[in-house]
């Protein structure tokens, strides 16, 4: 077994990471969804894949399971070359899709039993695996309830449990909390955090900044099919937004003036509705502060600032 690992690593250095994508391109007709993507996810890390809609996050996820085939580049998942060895890779990874595709006619338990079969959980371990997945998702008491009768939050937890029923080494979470209310979202964050703490490698795509800040060890920002920045949330904030941000409120003319002055001094700005935020406020010289005006409100810089500055997109 050790030899097999060494051979894999020799065959391609990308095999050493839990996930490795090199120069990956995926086109749909004239549209390039993923454009020369390079991404490595070390084992045991939770990587948040951040990006606006259409950035290529879901396509990237689908390529990792070979449900989309890359036009160019190389992909390794847990040492297996995808798509050639995708079936073996899928056996040791779990997928939680953005779209709820549970079977509504079956009970929570039946859904998990079917997938325990499909994931090749040995017969003698199947019942325990299903019990454990139900317990993990706090659904033991609802195991005989039809999915159709479960609440939105329960269904989402069941979806996560389904991807974990075979205790995978890697979990792909595609927008795991999209469309859920804040309370349910917080519940799921606890579940995902537990995975990370247990040593499972997690690749989580999201466009919720708060989700990435709370859960991810590292974030990769995607835009137009490429990773445009990567690092821990705090490192990204420090690099692109600094320590503090100053927000100026006022009529449109005033905001335009603030933007002009700040950019003229080489500072980054972002519009947030009725205000303009000037990033890296700690680097603003006193003379420039006077020029910008006394109406600025200082606050801590956030990952959201980085996201907006780098992608030019609004966030939710």
């Amino acid at each position, binding site marked *: 077994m050790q030899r*097999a*690992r060494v051979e894999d690593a020799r065959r391609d250095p990308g095999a050493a990471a839990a996930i490795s994508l090199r120069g990956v391109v995926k086109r*749909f007709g004239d549209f390039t969804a993923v454009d020369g993507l390079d991404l490595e996810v070390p084992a*045991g890390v939770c990587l948040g894949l951040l990006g606006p809609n259409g950035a290529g996050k879901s396509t990237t996820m689908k390529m990792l399971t*070979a449900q989309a085939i890359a036009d160019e580049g190389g992909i390794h998942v847990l040492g297996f070359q995808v798509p050639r060895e995708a079936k*073996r890779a899928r*056996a040791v990874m779990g997928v939680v899709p953005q779209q709820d595709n549970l079977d509504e006619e079956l009970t929570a338990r039946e859904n998990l039993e079917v997938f325990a079969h*499909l994931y*090749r959980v040995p017969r003698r371990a199947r019942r325990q695996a299903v019990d454990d997945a139900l317990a993990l998702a706090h659904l033991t008491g609802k195991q005989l309830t039809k999915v159709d009768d479960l609440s939105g939050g329960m269904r989402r937890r069941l979806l996560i449990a389904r991807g974990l029923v075979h205790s995978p080494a890697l979990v792909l979470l595609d927008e795991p909390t999209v469309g859920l209310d804040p309370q349910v979202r917080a519940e799921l964050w606890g579940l995902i955090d537990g995975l990370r703490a247990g*040593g499972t490698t997690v690749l989580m795509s999201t466009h919720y900044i708060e989700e990435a800040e709370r859960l991810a060890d590292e974030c990769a920002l995607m835009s137009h099919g490429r990773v445009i920045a990567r690092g821990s949330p705090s490192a990204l904030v420090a690099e692109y937004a600094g320590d503090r941000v100053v927000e100026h409120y006022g009529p449109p003319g005033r905001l335009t003036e603030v933007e002009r002055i700040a950019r003229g001094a080489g500072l980054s700005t972002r519009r947030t509705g009725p205000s303009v935020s000037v990033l890296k406020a700690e680097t603003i010289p006193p003379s420039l502060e006077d020029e910008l005006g006394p109406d600025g409100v200082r606050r801590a810089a956030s990952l959201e600032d980085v996201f907006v500055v780098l992608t030019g997109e609004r966030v939710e």
Partner: protein
Amino acid sequence: MSGANRGVREVALPQGAGKTVQAPRLRRFEFAPVAGIWRHELALYKRYWKSQSFASMVEPTFFLLAFGYGFGSMIAMIGDYRYLDFVATGVVGVAALFTSVFPGMFNGYIRRVFQHTYDAMLATPVDVHELVTAEALWIAAKSAVYSCTPLVVALFFGLDPSFGMLLVPFVTFFTALGFGLFGTWTSSVVPSINSFDYVITGVVTPLFLIAGTFFPVDALPGWAQKAAYLNPLYHCVELVRDAVFGLDPLADLGHFGALVLFAALMWVIAVRGMRNRLID
């Protein structure tokens, strides 16, 4: 999967970081996904067996009684057979067609487009050809049982029992396998679920009318007779009749070969069609 530790290897994780798991060695075609998909079907069937059985068994029985007694009162014999016996064996083929092509079409489409069940399954160690095979085998197995209903009913109306009747489920299994796969393939090429109207009216209806089900193929115009020979349902009906009334080994081998060839061809195009739809 029993014996899952056989032929496993640990996946490549660097420096012992993260969780260590074992990846089973998987063959190109495995029966474990088939068992898993049948588990899914069985769970659904446990809920809907009554309605499914009612539709699958009562409808062909109505055909049998309506044609058998309706036309049977005007046509006593066709060749050496009582008309009721002739129709009973024909309706077996019709039942095999209906109980396979419609699940193939509608289940295939609904699970792919509306429920996204297949997307979920393909995120596990299941390939498209295994998925298509498992679904088709389930449809064929069910159809093989249901399509024998007209024979059982006909026994109560005077059809002589014979040992050859035991071959009928095998004949209808292969017939249903082909038509189930045909349904799956059409589900992968139609632009919307409403397009099935074209398939039902333009393909399925002519198939069961030009197959020697309710009247002999010899009674048809020459071109229709030639068309019937290309119709898999015709070969099914001929095989069923020979199984019930007496085998004609050489001809029956040809009929059986036609059914196997049809199923194999449908498997190839159904897998290709579904792969085109399910894999980007």
